[in-house]
């Protein structure tokens, strides 16, 4: 199997920690250095993609703005765990961006397709 690029795996909800922003920064940097990069939103990481966030009330920058720029950065693959969405009662149309849904059975292949996996 050919393996290339970096999979950035993020499992934390936004705002309660800096993990969401830190994962985005790594993905954007991969893009700047022309490294193929995939973002995988798993577990509470799927909360990062909810649209309509208003974190200015807690003194934080809105992640949605950065997320909407991801396609401009040529970050082609935004993968979201189907089961993580379902466990949280979320639907795909509640997310800020079009994403690639990945069911649990496809997760091992997703890891296998990338040369390195960075957990953040």
């Amino acid at each position, binding site marked *: 199997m050919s393996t290339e690029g970096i999979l950035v*795996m993020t499992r934390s909800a936004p705002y309660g920690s800096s993990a969401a922003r830190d994962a985005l920064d790594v993905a954007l940097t991969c893009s700047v250095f022309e490294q193929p990069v995939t973002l995988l939103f*798993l577990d509470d990481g799927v909360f990062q993609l909810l649209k309509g966030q208003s974190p200015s009330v807690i003194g934080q920058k809105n992640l949605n703005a950065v997320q909407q720029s991801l396609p401009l950065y040529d970050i082609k693959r935004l993968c979201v765990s189907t089961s993580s969405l379902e466990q949280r009662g979320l639907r795909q149309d509640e997310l800020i961006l079009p994403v690639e849904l990945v069911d*649990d059975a496809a997760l*091992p292949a997703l890891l296998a397709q990338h040369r390195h*996996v960075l*957990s953040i």
Partner: protein
Amino acid sequence: MVLHTLNQAPANAACMASALNTITSEDTLLLIEDGVYWTLPAFASQLANLTGRLVALEADLKARDLKADAVESVDDAGFVALCVSHDKVVSWF
């Protein structure tokens, strides 16, 4: 072949559940830090779905007075050897 490391105690069951979702029969799960508490018999049923090889880091077992006779253990050199013998390393924390 992926080496997965997991450093979370059994209280963080979601972390283990997600790791188990991605681990194949060719993979290895290496328990480190508080992750070594998963070697206790009380948690065996939650690991029943693990298809890959289970290994625990020796220093972390010893530090915590865990015997884990039923589980394979490796020292730090063994950790490095596992990194070499697998294609990549995925960290769960």
